[in-house]
């Protein structure tokens, strides 16, 4: 009886690679070793490994790790072509920078991760920058520090400071303008509520504005070139609270109501200060910069105080 000869598929390396590539394209998220094995059960582990290595070195596969093991993913043809001209070291540095995502990575950290000497790193970085593969972004926290990230990535908020920073400068006028606008909005709402002369509960409730309303109002005003999110508006409203002009309450809101975050809504209301400027500041001594040096009979004393003389003649 002729043995059923299991036809051994010719372990043609190129065929294997093509097969693996086809599998990768089938599963864009990546394939594990297991998947390859299932597909080509006759393939020995060694040949499989060789094929994968070849593909990796050619830069056509990406090696990733996830919780269950190693993943192989098809690399973008475009990026694959980019790296054609570079050597391994550059590729390594590039890899490290890519891993850092949009937070960027400092040159010293690149050195640690790749174990390359400083001069090499600098050369490679210059090279990559000229090829327009990476870019340097100045960090807002330490103005001398430069972090590198991929060219087409948007730098993360923590690096550039978010909506309040433009080119590393804190936009104080912008913040001030927003501050005033929000306050005017809340104040006018409170006044409208007060003038409506209904019973107090309704009056108070109608003088509240949710953070969502304020956000919509500011967006409609169109004074901001940058898109502001609701968190940004909330930080502005917080500064108004710290100015003592606004108070906030949190109420529980059903999930799904417009503007609610985690089942809560923040309500803001314009308020008046509870006392007038206090008596101490009506005297020049309350505001005097040399208050502690003032003694009777000294250089600075109440009898010859210049501030008092001016204030009395006012």
């Amino acid at each position, binding site marked *: 009886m002729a043995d059923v000869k299991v036809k051994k598929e010719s372990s043609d390396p190129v065929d294997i690679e093509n097969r693996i590539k086809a599998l990768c394209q089938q599963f864009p998220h990546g394939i594990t070793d297991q998947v390859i094995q299932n597909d080509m059960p006759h393939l020995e582990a060694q040949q499989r490994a060789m094929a994968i290595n070849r593909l990796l070195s050619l830069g056509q596969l990406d090696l990733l790790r996830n919780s269950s093991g190693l993943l192989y993913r098809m690399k973008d043809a475009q990026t694959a072509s980019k790296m054609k001209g570079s050597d391994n070291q550059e590729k390594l540095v590039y890899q490290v920078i890519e891993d850092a995502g949009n937070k960027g990575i400092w040159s010293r950290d690149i050195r640690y991760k790749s174990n390359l000497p400083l001069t090499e790193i600098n050369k490679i970085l210059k090279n990559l920058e000229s090829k327009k593969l990476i870019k340097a972004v100045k960090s807002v926290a330490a103005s001398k520090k430069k972090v590198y990230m991929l060219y087409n990535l948007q730098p993360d908020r923590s690096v550039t400071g978010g909506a309040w920073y433009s080119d590393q400068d804190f936009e104080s006028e912008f913040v001030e303008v927003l501050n005033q606008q929000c306050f005017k909005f809340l104040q006018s709402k409170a006044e409208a509520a007060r003038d409506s002369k209904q019973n107090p509960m309704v009056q108070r409730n109608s003088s509240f504005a949710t953070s969502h309303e304020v956000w919509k109002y500011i967006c409609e005003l169109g004074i901001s070139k940058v898109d502001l999110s609701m968190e940004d508006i909330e930080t502005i409203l917080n500064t108004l609270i710290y*100015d003592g002009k606004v108070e906030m309450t949190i109420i529980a809101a059903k999930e799904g109501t417009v503007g609610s975050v985690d089942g809560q809504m923040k309500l803001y209301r314009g308020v008046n200060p509870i006392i007038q400027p206090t008596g*101490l500041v009506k005297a020049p001594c309350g505001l005097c910069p040399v208050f502690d040096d003032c003694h009777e009979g000294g250089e600075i004393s109440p009898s010859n105080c210049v501030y008092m003389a001016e204030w*009395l003649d006012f």
Partner: protein
Amino acid sequence: MTAQEVRLCGLLLQEHFGEVVERIGTHLLRGGAQNLRTIANETNTPLDLVKKSLCVLVQHGACEFGSGRRGPGSPVEYRANCERVLRVLRYPRYIYTAKTLYGDTGELIVEEVLQRGHMTMSNTVKTVADRLTHNMEEGRSMEYSEVVSAFSKLVETHFLQRCPPVAEMGTAASSTTPSNPDCYKLPHVTLIGRGKRRRSSDDSEEQRGGKKAKMEVESCGDEGIYWQVNFERFHQHFRDQAVISAVASKLDQTSSEIVRTMLRMSEVTTTQTAAYTQPLSANEIFRSLPPNYSISRPILDQYLSLLVDDPVGADLDSPPHIPTLNLQRALANLARATLESVVQERFGSRSARIFRLLLRKRHLEQKQVEDFAMIPAKEAKDMLYTLLSENLVQLQEIPKTPDHAPSRTFYLYTVNQLPTARLLLQHCYKTVANLIERRLFETKENKRLLEKSQRIEAILASLQASGAEPEQLTEVEEMITAPERQQLEALRHHINKLDSTENQVDETVFLLESYIFSTKTK
């Protein structure tokens, strides 16, 4: 007894009682309890002057005496009461309050009692009646009964109280007035009569009349029952006013009326240091509301629940329908607002923002302060360091490693409300002292001018009384030249301004003192 307080007390004593009393008073304040001989020796004053000044101080309640340290047999020791002397600054406010509550009669009663320290009722009534009659038109005079009614109203609302009986030597001093059951009981004295008008032409008659009046006083029934002003009650009133105005500015007029009603109802039942008012039912409040605020019952309930929810204002606590006012928290809020307003006026609104931020969030790092307050890093740093150097903000170190290396330590900024309030209170005392000194300086500078104007006024008055012609009057008036007149005007303006500012600073002093006092008695 800080240095600033002693300086201020000295100035106040000097203005109101003279140099000798001031010397004795400051010596007592600085030195604690001393006996007669020590005081006389150390201040180099003759013994009888010392005795007289001590009498004055005791009369006004600024000084107490008690048995000496070495037991009942040792010489009497005298102790000065700094707080009481500082109250002198607040006399104008007390008098003004009495005027708004009880009219001119009340004002004059309180003024007399404040001036004399302790007075009997009959004495007060007579003096006040005379004064009122003096200011009235010809032919009318003040009934004693009116004055008596005003006096009794003041006593009923606890603004005046009896002085505690003087302790015998060797026995323990009687406890303070609240436990004295009779302190608000009016003596049974019937005073019938009218005020006497004093005329300058009746001087000789007045002498005899004065003697007769003295005889009459002795026959009144209230010997030995002396009355004094109950400062604590006035303070309670001021505090209520502050709370009501805070509620009015925060919420609206009607809420403040409700709060006012609640406070009025618990006026005599709440002790001065109570943290909460007595529980009142909403029904009682409804009934006691003033008639022109006709709001219906459900609306009242709504207002009450609004007051409960309000985070900053008068702080009603309630299980519903039994609202009480949390006075301690109200005072703390008022004190905090005072601190914030001082920082705002002195350093600008951005520093005030940082200050308020630190008050709310307690402890923050430098970076967090910049982020929350949305102030650029450089400016925020500058402001924080300024506040730190003025001691309004404190730095708290939290080391990460046992060796406290600066690079591995957290530095947190924080604001402690109570110590900052105390610091500001001392500033206030110094400010008031500065204002008084400036006033004295201005008066001294222009003494010559003032004396001249006084002489001219005296001449004018005598000329007018003796019926002179207008030319003589104008001649005399022209003795003051125009620039001198201007100078006098300016001087008057300055002194008024300084005076009124003293009163305003005193308001701050009151708020801070009440807050600090309320935190002490826990």
